[in-house]
């Protein structure tokens, strides 16, 4: 019998569900769950990643499962687009599951059993979303993913703030899910229940108005899941609330399923795109990116900071998709392929470094019991492994060559640089402005990451807990090392990655990115005269120059080293409290972008004997959009409740009046 990628992928999903159930059954022996089930789940992830890679170059497979409702079976399809995201899911979740094997050790059995089930259901749900080939299975998988992650977020449900965060997440996830369902409804085009498969939607040629409606609904629905402005509010609440491996999966992988959804609907299910879709996504993406990074700069909680940084990255991805649509509509397919490649590459990169950083915060949380960066410091001494691996993640997310973040940023900027000559001059003008905004948010991201790493790991410990912190365990190190390795490899072998992504471009756009140079060392997206980048040579050159310098200095001079107290310009008294806290480091950004924040601060008077300072920077959108919507909803439901009194005779009267009215009119 011939085994196809789709069989393996379905097997992986089944295995994950079985592993989850086993975890629930074995809740009396938490040791087994941690050291057998999670590592085994990780191996399954690796298998899924391999299957995804395999599917990239294979022809699309279709399968119909004997599940679902009568006459409504589940359809599966594994094409290169699904394959790419499955590889992303597998690659990232391998590291996270390994890490989870160590991280959850301290947990009580009953909680752990349930958590194991939810965790693996979450993974299975995400894989199923990527494989679904009909609206019904897609929504079932989407809801499985949303609900299992909701229960994971509320693992520590005894804390009111976490319950609140979970509620917000659930609410926005469902508002989004309704929009997605409606979008599928529009695409089905009133052709009855038989048209619920994606294949039927591909062939239903919608009119311009209806296809735009379907697109807008899908953008809203998937945007809510991805955290696109203004539906981002759940991200900075839910990510810190969840246990760290879960935050890593949510931020690294789950947000990408929304990106997958946008790509699937825009390029696959809808047969033609319209130029303003691209401009809309470009604009929304730019706003989201700047907003995310600006708020990340002023956060004091390490996981909130990373959540805002995820918002920024989602913004960048949306910019990439917007550019792809615009170029595609105007027939510039080489450029469309370039920006799609940049988008997909960045999805992959973000999955790696954001998962790495999130699991890293888990180790810090375990070691210090703190999420507030202002009480940490000096962890590089007590947690050398975590510090070294996180440094890789921090450099990668800041877009430093030769790591992976730089490659996708480079590709995206190349797309901007090659773009002049679009027929619409307004869009042509938007391009340089967009490039400038991207450059600005990338530079701000470096600011944020220096703050993140510097305040947590460097300097002197600001609290007792930080001074006595311990390093991560073996499982945790293994998981983090894998993710860090991916960051390095994806940075060093861009030509290979681009070749894999080409299969997706071929599917969605009908063109692919040619690598002009024949060498695997040199990335040359358009032609060798225009642009090229070779991370391997780059790394070799920097390392070579560095080692030569070390050798020359030590050979011709000496390597003598003495230790002494810090000099600090000769100031005698200095303590840990004189260092910048997270708030202090972000203060310039708060000052420069003051109008964008809602700042409440209490400053002590200069004569205060016991001075206290308090400052909060809040999201204006919460007050300008969400609270009015809430008030309106309350008012509306208040009016509706006027009808409801709970007396049976009242309802009978309503029925009677309706009947009379109907009789009069009909």
């Amino acid at each position, binding site marked *: 019998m011939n085994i196809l990628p789709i069989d393996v992928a379905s097997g992986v999903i089944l295995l994950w569900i079985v592993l989850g159930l086993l975890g629930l059954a074995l809740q009396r022996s938490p040791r087994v769950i941690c050291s057998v089930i999670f590592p085994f789940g990780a191996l399954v992830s690796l298998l899924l990643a391999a299957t995804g890679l395999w599917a990239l170059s294979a022809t699309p497979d279709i399968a119909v499962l004997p599940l679902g409702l009568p006459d409504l079976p589940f359809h599966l399809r594994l094409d290169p687009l699904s394959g790419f995201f499955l590889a992303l899911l597998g690659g990232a979740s391998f590291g996270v599951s390994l890490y989870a094997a160590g991280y959850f050790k301290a947990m009580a059995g009953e909680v752990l059993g349930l958590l194991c089930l939810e965790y693996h259901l979450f993974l299975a749900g995400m894989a199923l979303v990527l494989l679904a080939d009909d609206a019904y299975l897609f929504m079932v998988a989407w809801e499985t993913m949303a609900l299992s992650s909701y229960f994971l977020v509320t693992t520590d449900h005894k804390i009111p703030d976490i319950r609140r965060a979970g509620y917000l997440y659930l609410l926005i996830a469902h508002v989004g899910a309704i929009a997605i369902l409606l979008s599928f409804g529009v695409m089905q085009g009133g052709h009855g229940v038989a048209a619920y498969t994606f294949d039927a939607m591909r062939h239903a040629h919608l009119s311009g108005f209806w296809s735009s409606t379907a697109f807008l609904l899908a953008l809203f629905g998937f945007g809510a899941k991805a955290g696109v402005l203004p539906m981002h509010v759940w991200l900075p609440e839910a990510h810190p609330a969840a246990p760290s491996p879960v935050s890593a999966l949510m931020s690294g992988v789950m947000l990408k399923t929304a990106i997958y959804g946008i790509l699937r609907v825009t390029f696959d299910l809808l047969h033609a795109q319209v130029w303003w879709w691209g401009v809309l996504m470009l604009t929304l993406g730019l706003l989201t990116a700047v907003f995310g990074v600006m708020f990340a700069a002023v956060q004091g909680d390490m996981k909130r900071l990373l959540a805002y940084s995820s918002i920024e990255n989602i913004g960048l991805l949306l910019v990439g998709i917007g550019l792809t649509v615009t170029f595609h509509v105007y027939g510039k397919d080489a450029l469309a392929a370039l920006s799609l490649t940049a988008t997909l590459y960045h999805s992959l990169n973000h999955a790696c470094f954001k998962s790495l950083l999130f699991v890293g915060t888990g180790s810090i949380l375990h070691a210090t019991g703190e999420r507030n960066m202002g009480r940490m410091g000096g962890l590089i001494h007590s947690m050398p492994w975590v510090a070294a691996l996180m440094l890789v993640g921090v450099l990668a997310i800041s877009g430093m060559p030769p790591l992976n973040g730089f490659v996708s940023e480079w590709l995206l900027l190349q797309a901007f640089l090659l773009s002049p000559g679009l027929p619409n001059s307004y869009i042509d003008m938007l391009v340089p402005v967009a490039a400038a905004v991207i450059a600005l948010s990338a530079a701000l991201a470096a600011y944020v990451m*220096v703050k993140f790493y510097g305040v947590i790991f460097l*300097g002197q410990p600001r609290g007792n807990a930080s001074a006595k912190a311990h390093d991560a365990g073996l499982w945790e190190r293994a998981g983090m090392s894998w993710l860090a390795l991916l960051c390095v490899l994806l940075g060093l072998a861009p030509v290979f990655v681009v070749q894999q992504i080409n299969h997706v471009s071929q599917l969605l756009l009908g063109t692919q990115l040619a690598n002009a140079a024949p060498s695997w060392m040199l990335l040359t997206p358009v032609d060798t005269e225009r*642009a090229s980048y070779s991370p391997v040579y780059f790394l070799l050159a920097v390392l070579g120059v560095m080692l030569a310098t070390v050798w020359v200095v030590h050979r011709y*001079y000496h390597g003598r080293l003495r230790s002494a107290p810090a000099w600090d310009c000769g100031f005698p008294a200095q303590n840990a409290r004189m260092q910048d806290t997270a708030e202090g480091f972000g203060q310039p950004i708060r000052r420069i972008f003051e109008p964008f924040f809602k700042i409440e601060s209490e400053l002590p008077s200069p004569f205060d004997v016991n001075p206290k300072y308090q400052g909060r920077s809040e999201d204006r959108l919460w007050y300008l959009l969400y609270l009015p919507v809430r008030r309106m909803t309350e008012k509306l439901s208040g009016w509706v409740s006027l009808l409801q009194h709970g007396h049976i005779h009242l309802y009978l009267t309503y029925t009677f009046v309706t009947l009379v009215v109907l009789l009069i009119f009909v």
Partner: protein
Amino acid sequence: MMLNMTQVPAVLFQLTQLLLVVLAAPLLTGWVNQCQAWLQNRSGAGILQPYRVLHKLFLKDAVIAYNASWLFRITPYIVFGCMWLAAAIIPIIAVDLPFSRAADVIALVGVFALARMFIALAAMDIGTAFGTLGARREMLVSFLAEPALLMVLFTASMISHSTQLPRIVAAFTQQQFMLYPSLAFAALAFLIVLLAENARIPVDNPSTHLELTMIHEAMILEYSARHLALIEWAASLKLFAYFSIGIALFFPYGIAEVGHWSGLPLAIFLLLLKLLLAGAGLALFEALTAKMRIFRAPEFLGTAFLLAVLGLLIHFLLRA
């Protein structure tokens, strides 16, 4: 690089430039300092003073704080390596250096960013008040200066249809002389970025150790001996690299083509002349300007960013 016979001269050119920049960079710093001394009516220490300082620093024992980590110790080497590489990929005496294929203008900005990130992290490593203050201010300056630099380079790339520096320079030298309005804006923006990124007045003052005004010096306060020497040398290389970028983008005339050894003496002579003039110009500008408050710096750099974006927009509008 894969070596074949045709590439040998190019590789030799690359190695020549690699050695030349690292040896000549302190000379430029010495020249700027000497010009400043003359403008301030001092006799000055001579243009060779930076070499004496470096030699002295290399001879001393390195002293590091008790709680310095490995990050603190490797940073000087990383910063030095990055700056050396940056100066080596800019076409200074010859077009078409083989290494510029591996790193184009975006990667060049990336190299600067990598060095900056490490030095800012190292500044926070000891945990002194000045260190974190310096790191914060450096990142504040750079988050506006870096995109401005990128936009300047983009304008040049758009004109020459390439992001590789040798192509950009070749495009500017080979075609007939022509005024680009977009480049005028870019040049102005680049000037501001040059001042800010090299810790010059009016954003920072390289000769101050006055606590409240320093940026770059605050970050490297805890460094001594060979570490300090490498960082100072890297700063010279950075100034050299920025001058070279300016020359390559705005006055590239006279540069040698690859393999043309006969053009080399003239190219070196012209380069020296340009650098001397640029150094004197920098000293004069610094003598005439006052340092601004740190919170005026974002406005100053914001201007640079806007100018650079304006340059790019003008290019899109006029196609020139």
